[in-house]
């Protein structure tokens, strides 16, 4: 197995890091303090990101993306993940890969403008009544000739306030299976402004200032069947085919933030003196650093191995689950220890640590909770044994 990075990968890391440090870091304090990413600021940074070819770099080259393999894409995600989420996700957006399922006119209307940065997407699965158990969703789409009538409520939907359209998951029927009834799910693309589709402000939350979640309400919302993404009743299949590595994307952004927290902690350990010496000379501090570095590396290896396997078409659900689980829990640990090493200063907003610590919290919940990832890992082990 080859672990060395290629020259291109090193260059991509470098240029993404430069962008993050020069264009995103300087605005973090403003976004964190105000809780708002000003549209003018967003547009200015976005224009630079497009110019640098960083915007939508997750997408294949044939639709205008950078055409990176999964490992290289994650190296880029790791660098972006260092910065405030609202800044990197909005200004250097990565449109959902699921848009690659667009066909015919959908490509011109949604996919290509999303890659060019002219339109932006959001994705709605979760409902007040269904989170981890997505297939239990109540939101439904009833056929009416060439149209579908959609009713239901989604919540926690990231970026829906800014997005020009939503990729909505709704139940379109039921089928009998040996294990009972199973809902059939279909993905629809719905434009903002479609009658019957209302976006309400979501909840205030502890993580990711400057970014918002929303509540989406569908009340007899009529959409033409041409708005189906993929095939009817094949919503999860479309997601499986294209969404693929989003859990690895979460893992990679966690690696970047953990690395940044560790950098601060290392520096503080040599700069801060107590009892007449650098605090890093105390075993109580230095052993923390050793554990943080080791955990970070372990998460990195799991993530990058899964990425490599993904490209070889060898990645299993368990590989992805392990990477996501380890990286998100590692970040929580590293962020917490970095604060501990800083003492009181670690909690002050002058340093990025308190927000890395706050932001870390959501990572163990979205894209599948830690429990769900453990469930996936354990099922993969036990099922072959008849468990």
């Amino acid at each position, binding site marked *: 197995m080859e672990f060395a990075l290629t*020259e291109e990968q090193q260059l991509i890391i*470098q*240029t993404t890091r430069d962008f993050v440090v020069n264009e995103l870091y300087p605005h973090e304090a403003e976004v964190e303090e105000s809780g708002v990413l000003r549209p003018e600021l967003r547009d200015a940074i976005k224009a630079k990101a497009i110019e640098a070819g960083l915007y939508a770099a997750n997408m294949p080259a044939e639709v205008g993306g*950078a*055409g990176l393999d999964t490992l290289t894409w994650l190296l*880029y995600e790791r660098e972006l993940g260092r910065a405030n989420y609202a800044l990197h996700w909005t200004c250097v957006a990565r449109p959902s890969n699921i848009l690659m399922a667009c066909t015919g006119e959908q490509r011109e209307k949604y996919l290509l403008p999303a890659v060019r940065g002219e339109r932006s997407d959001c994705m709605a699965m979760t409902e007040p009544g269904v989170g981890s158990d997505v297939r239990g969703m109540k939101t439904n789409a009833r056929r009416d000739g060439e149209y579908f009538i959609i009713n239901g409520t989604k919540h926690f939907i990231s970026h829906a306030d800014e997005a020009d359209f939503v990729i909505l998951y709704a139940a379109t029927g039921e089928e009998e299976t040996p294990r009972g009834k199973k809902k059939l799910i279909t993905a629809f693309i719905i434009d903002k402004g479609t009658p019957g589709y209302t976006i309400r402000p979501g909840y205030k939350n502890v993580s990711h200032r400057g970014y918002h979640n929303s509540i989406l309400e569908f009340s007899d919302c009529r959409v033409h069947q041409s708005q189906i993404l993929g095939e009817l009743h094949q919503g999860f299949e479309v997601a499986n085919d294209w969404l693929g590595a989003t859990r690895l994307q979460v893992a990679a952004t966690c690696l970047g933030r953990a690395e940044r927290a560790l950098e601060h902690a290392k520096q503080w350990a040599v700069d801060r003196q107590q009892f007449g010496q650098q605090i890093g000379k105390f075993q109580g501090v230095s052993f923390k650093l050793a554990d943080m570095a080791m955990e970070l590396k372990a998460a990195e290896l799991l993530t990058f191995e899964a990425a490599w396997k993904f490209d070889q078409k060898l990645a299993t659900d368990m590989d992805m689950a392990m990477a996501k689980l380890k990286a998100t829990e590692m970040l929580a640990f590293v962020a917490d220890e970095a604060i501990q090493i800083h003492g009181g200063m670690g909690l002050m907003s002058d340093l990025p640590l308190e927000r890395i610590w706050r932001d870390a919290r959501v990572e163990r919940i979205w894209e599948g909770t830690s429990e769900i990832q453990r469930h996936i890992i354990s099922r993969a082990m036990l099922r072959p044994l008849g468990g």
Partner: protein
Amino acid sequence: MRRILVGIKRVVDYSVRVRVKPDGTGVALDGVKMSINPFDEIALEEALRMKERGEADEVVAMSIGPEEAQQQLRTALAMGADRAILVKSDTAVEPLTAAQVFTAIARAEDARLVLVGKQAIDDDANQTGQMLAALWGRPQATFASKVEVLGEVLRVTREVDAGLETLEIDLPAVVTVDLRLNEPRYVKLPDIMKAKKKPLDVKSFADYGVEPTERLKVTLYVAPATRSKGIMVKSVAELVDVLKKKGLA
């Protein structure tokens, strides 16, 4: 072919806190991040802008250094240089040797303009550009903060102690660039992938008829003395008081 040559030196990244080796023979380089000398990056940016404005046809990045300097040349290619030349050297290159190699390349490539950084941030010699102009027998303008191409003439604004000085020099010429000339671009992601296909020739000193001789001998590297801790004063009055006591006000 209006060709611009740009010198690209591999140096320790500006953000690295260098450590002197315990035996004083140099600074520790293992595992240290290396980059293009920042002034050379500015030189390259200027060359690329000239090409984009139609004032040049080809931009060639050239470096003298170890095998690994290919990384910096790849970066230059990804930024937009058309091709690159690495002259391999496994030992430190003195300014005169660099100037001899660059002169030979300038002649072999029939260069119209050679752009180099005013100095490299490792040894801060600030000599290569000047020596190159002398050896090549062409005009030079150093510490450029603005460069305009006026046909066969280059108008260069220089940063000098007294302010700004503007020179007009005939092409072909050598220009060494200063910090304020421009702000280098980000390497574009798609261009990184394309850079791999651009030619990078690896050459030897012999290919350019240069025999590197050691004229300079470094006797010792020492870290600068650590500055003693400052004191905090509570008011302007107290500050003036302290300065007076030290005989500074």
